[in-house]
């Protein structure tokens, strides 16, 4: 009996060890952001910058992320319907094509977009280019959870609604969309987490007016080294992301993230 307990303790300990390791970089960044360089005392001084000179950057990041989420919804919902409910030829091929951005390394996407933005579309370093890159890189993450949710949704519900006299739109808005809620929310969550913290593609395609917060962190590390203010910005970003994740998990659990291989 005692041997069994020891093994269980070790096993749980192993899990907690790794969980601690996952959170450790965040905790150290948090710690560093609170300590003043001079005397090691703790204060919120560095967070002045977050509301001061970093404020515009944070607002830009938030705005870009929200816009991306909306566009993703508009693009991915119909596409998911098309793939699940309609008879399309070559679905596997279509899905692979749509998900291509997921398999593309960030630097490859970055450099190829720089070339195309400069040469073909003439939107180099623009906000439009930024949003386009974010959308194409993240709508697979919106598409997949919605597909999973749609597949699990029995058609009985909307058939019943149609029998009872609802029009197509009514069925969609009042029956299916609420039932798809968790899947859609999973997509929103993933889009948010990825786009909000994206810096590598941004590194290639952003300009002076489109510096997002993670890119700012990157630039600050390269120029000013490791300052408490940089740490404060990084901590804020992670905190916001984590809170969003927590809210999602509270509401829906992790069931709908299953197909995306990110969790």
């Amino acid at each position, binding site marked *: 009996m005692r041997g069994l307990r020891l093994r269980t303790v070790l096993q749980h300990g192993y*899990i907690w060890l790794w969980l601690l390791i996952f959170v450790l970089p965040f905790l150290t960044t948090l710690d560093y952001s609170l300590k003043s360089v001079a005397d090691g005392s703790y204060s919120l001084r560095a967070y002045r910058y977050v509301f001061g000179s970093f404020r515009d950057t944070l607002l830009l990041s938030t705005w870009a992320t929200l816009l991306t989420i909306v566009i993703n919804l508009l693009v991915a919902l119909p596409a998911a319907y098309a793939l699940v409910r309609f008879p399309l030829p070559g679905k596997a091929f279509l899905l692979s094509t749509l998900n291509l951005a997921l398999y*593309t*390394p960030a630097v490859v996407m970055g450099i190829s*977009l720089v070339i195309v933005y400069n040469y073909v579309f003439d939107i180099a370093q623009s906000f439009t280019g930024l949003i386009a890159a974010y959308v194409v890189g993240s709508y697979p993450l919106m*598409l997949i959870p919605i597909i999973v949710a749609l597949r699990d949704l029995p058609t009985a519900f909307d058939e019943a609604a149609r029998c009872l006299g609802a029009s197509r739109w009514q069925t969609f808005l009042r029956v299916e969309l609420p039932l798809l809620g968790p899947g859609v929310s999973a997509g929103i969550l993933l889009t948010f987490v990825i786009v909000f913290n994206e810096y590598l593609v941004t590194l290639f395609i952003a300009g002076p007016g489109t510096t997002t917060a993670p890119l700012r962190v990157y630039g600050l590390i390269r120029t000013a080294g490791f300052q408490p203010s940089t740490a404060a910005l990084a901590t804020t970003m992670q905190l916001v992301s984590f809170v969003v994740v927590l809210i999602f*998990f509270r509401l829906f659990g992790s069931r709908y993230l299953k197909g995306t*291989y990110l969790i």
Partner: protein
Amino acid sequence: MAADLATERPIKLARGRRERQRVLMGVGLILPALIISLLFSILPLVYLLLVSLTAESSFFFAPEYTLANYAQLVGRYLPALWTTIYLAGLASLLDLLFGYPFAYILVRQVRYRELVRALMIFPLFGPLYLAFGMYYLLLPNGPVGGMLERIGLQGVTLLYSLPSVLFGMALFTFPFMVMNIGAALSNIDPQLEEAARCLGASPWQIFWRLLFPLSRSGILAGLLMCFGWNLGVHAVPLVLGTINEQRVLSIVLYQRGVIQFDYGLAAAMGVALMLLAFGVTWVSLRFSKGALGA
């Protein structure tokens, strides 16, 4: 007979037309996504290939077509290619080594799975913050550095070193490995293990002769997926690595391409990286049991 023929055709026609209408509607629904993919995902890759065949930034002015970029890639930049591959490979192996037990315990023993999943999301926020945080951790006057100095190791050598880069890379892709192995393990009936134990198998035997063969596809899928992701690593070697680790393709690509404007060479590197990553990920999806029925 004649009556049948008379009624058959109208019904078939109607069905055919409705079918076609539905296909058309499906195409219409999926069109925005396709267009965006085409314009911003596929077209850029085509141009990437084109530019990789031109010298430096001549593509934008008067393209001179050449294979010199690829020659350079396998010549002068072969160490970069090799460093990318073996760093990614080692990190993926680390993931397997530490991730397999984690996945097993998670699937079999742990009830607070939701909490674990929530905390596992942290590395996904970005390798940048991971690298950043690890840097603070390993600073000579930081927490870990202090501990190390008491043992006698120099903190700085751990900071800029291969082990810390590998650790950072492995940490980022850890959730992917756990997910793949967890999915494979959850398909294995626990009664099989109990039966093996009753028949007298040791834990090692249970693993090697029961779990390992049955979870092989998950292991392979996890390894390949982690490998694919780790090929494009950028922040961790940059922040935590020595000059050796910073030879990784994505760092060199950025330097040569954006900073030194040698777009031809950078594009060639991009093509190489893309082929590697794409090939690996494609194979991994064949092995893993995705929700998409792959």
